[in-house]
């Protein structure tokens, strides 16, 4: 996973990625961040080389960052707000190295550190509109990973978006109770929760929680219901769910990571210490409808487009506060 860099580079930039304990096998969050790093590597104009360390344990975070620093890396990308405090500490101690962290915003970070945050609520809101319009039963479901800010934002946006599209809608949702390494990583559990929601009348389910959420999509495939993916266009990344997948609520982690790396390489490092990805900069959105394209009525598509515009100009709120 270390593609060769272009030969025309005068200087090669070394970028290291430190995952949280979800590791790359989460197939979403950490994997997408790594994808962004690899996109940068594959972009020969950037002259980037990269490596990844998967963390086994929260106490390993600082240590793993240090490994890159000891190897004189130019930039360290960390994934997840779980690494927020550790990344800040290491960034402060190493002002010459650039740091970017996915999903974390700091008040006044040091100049070499920037947070990459997303308006998941906006992505969820758009997906919620689709769900609210596509449901025939008037009940929609959502299977969520741990109750943590990004996931919570997806949920609030999704449920409010559905209500925006269909005021009478009923929303069901479930967070996965934490159980050691199984958080975000228990598709069987997710599948069973989604099935339970179908039993309670839901006919479309949003899977927002790594592998746990993917399980919800599988349940929809089996039960012949509809589903909504998360983070990336899961029609592409998770073909198992193609049959049920209407759309995915996207937050462009890979894009954000590549953006941060580009900023480092091109010396356009953000001074604010924060890059927000939202409706204004195509940082969030929803995926194409693919096979459902013909089934999604034009007025729904129009409503989504309209909402996206209003979210961007601030005239529409998702209802997420805090």
């Amino acid at each position, binding site marked *: *996973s270390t593609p060769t860099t272009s030969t025309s580079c005068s200087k090669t930039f070394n970028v290291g990625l430190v995952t949280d304990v979800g*590791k*790359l*096998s989460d197939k979403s969050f950490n994997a997408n961040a790594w994808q962004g790093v690899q996109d940068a590597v594959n972009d020969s104009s950037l002259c980037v080389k990269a490596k990844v360390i998967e963390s086994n344990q929260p106490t390993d975070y600082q240590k793993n960052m240090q490994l890159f620093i000891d190897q004189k890396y130019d930039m360290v990308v960390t994934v997840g707000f779980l690494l927020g405090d550790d990344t800040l500490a290491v960034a402060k101690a190493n002002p010459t190295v650039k740091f970017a962290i996915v999903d974390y915003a700091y008040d006044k970070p040091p100049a070499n550190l920037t947070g990459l945050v997303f308006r998941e609520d906006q992505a969820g809101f758009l997906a919620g509109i689709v769900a609210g319009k596509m449901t025939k039963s008037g009940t929609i*479901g959502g299977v969520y990973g741990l*109750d943590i800010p990004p996931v919570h934002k997806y949920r609030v946006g999704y449920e409010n978006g559905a209500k925006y599209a269909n005021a009478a809608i009923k929303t*069901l*949702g*479930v*967070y996965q*109770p*934490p*159980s*050691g*390494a*199984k958080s975000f*990583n*228990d*598709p*069987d*559990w997710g*599948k*069973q*929760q989604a*099935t*339970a*929601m*179908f*039993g*309670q*009348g839901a006919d479309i389910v949003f899977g927002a929680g790594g*592998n746990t959420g993917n*399980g919800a999509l*599988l349940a929809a495939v*089996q*039960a012949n219901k509809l589903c909504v993916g998360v983070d990336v266009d899961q029609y592409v990344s998770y*073909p*198992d769910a193609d049959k049920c997948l209407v759309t995915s609520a996207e937050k462009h982690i890979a894009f954000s990571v590549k953006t941060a790396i580009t900023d480092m390489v091109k010396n356009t490092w953000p001074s604010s210490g924060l890059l927000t990805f939202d409706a204004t900069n195509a940082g969030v959105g929803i995926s194409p409808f693919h096979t459902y394209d013909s089934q999604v009525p034009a007025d729904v598509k129009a409503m989504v487009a309209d909402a996206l515009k209003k979210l961007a100009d601030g005239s529409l709120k998702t209802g997420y506060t805090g």
Partner: protein
Amino acid sequence: MDFLGHLDIAGFVVATLIAATPLVLAGMGGVMSERSGVVNIALEGIMLTSAFAGYAAAVATHNLWLGVLVAIIAGMLIAALHALLSIQFLVDQIVSGTVINILAVGITGSFYRTYIQNSSLGGTGVLPALHLTFLPNAPFIGVITLAALALIPIVHFVLFNTVFGLRTRACGEHPLAAETAGINVYLVRYSNVILSGALAGLGGAYFTLQQIGNFLPNMTGGRGFIALAAMIFGRWTPVGAFGASLLFAGADAFSGRLQISGVNFPYQILGMLPYVLTIIVVAGAVGRAVAPAADGKPYKKS
């Protein structure tokens, strides 16, 4: 709270049966092994290995049924290692089981990260499921779950009505007596441990081939240990293990449904339900379950 109004009884029962599947399969595996006198805490590792092997075979052959077969065989092989260590080399059976559990994590994890994680390998799809259209909300029930249900009376029958079962119980209670009756204790114990690998192996296939169609590191998530608990508080009987599995899976399904129905209670506390309930049941109703007398004791011919 409109929980009761929305309680989908048929769905709840089916969900419980499905979630109980790996527990009862591995639990019955534990029953066979321990009834012959070999403690089997390796169930977790066996399931994990089989889940992986079944997935790998299904990917390679594009045949889910072959995947199931390979999962069962892989379970038998790794169980045979447990048998070799604990029966032949007299390794403490708990140690041997621990070795296998750690080994399973190492092997499946290494292979997963090398061959699967970064590959474009998709899912295998899942085994066919029976669509119970006559029930409200028409739930699905997978073939491995059906197989597990069918295996409960079969394993019960084998254990309590057949020659093999009689010899198995004899070896677990008093191997020397079995030996004097002309029984080959080693053979009986080997057979049972390997058989437990087959059962737990089918339980492993549940994860990859019935439910998900994909492998994930550590995807058994401790269910082997819960199966062990189910076996103990099912008093080392297949039917008891089934009952215990239902209790646990039912509590799990129930706690999820409580949350879905919007009960205003911290979801982590709801999530404790199956575990708390298991402790209460183990401590209360069946605390004094008595293991087969020779369970855990290596047998050494003089």
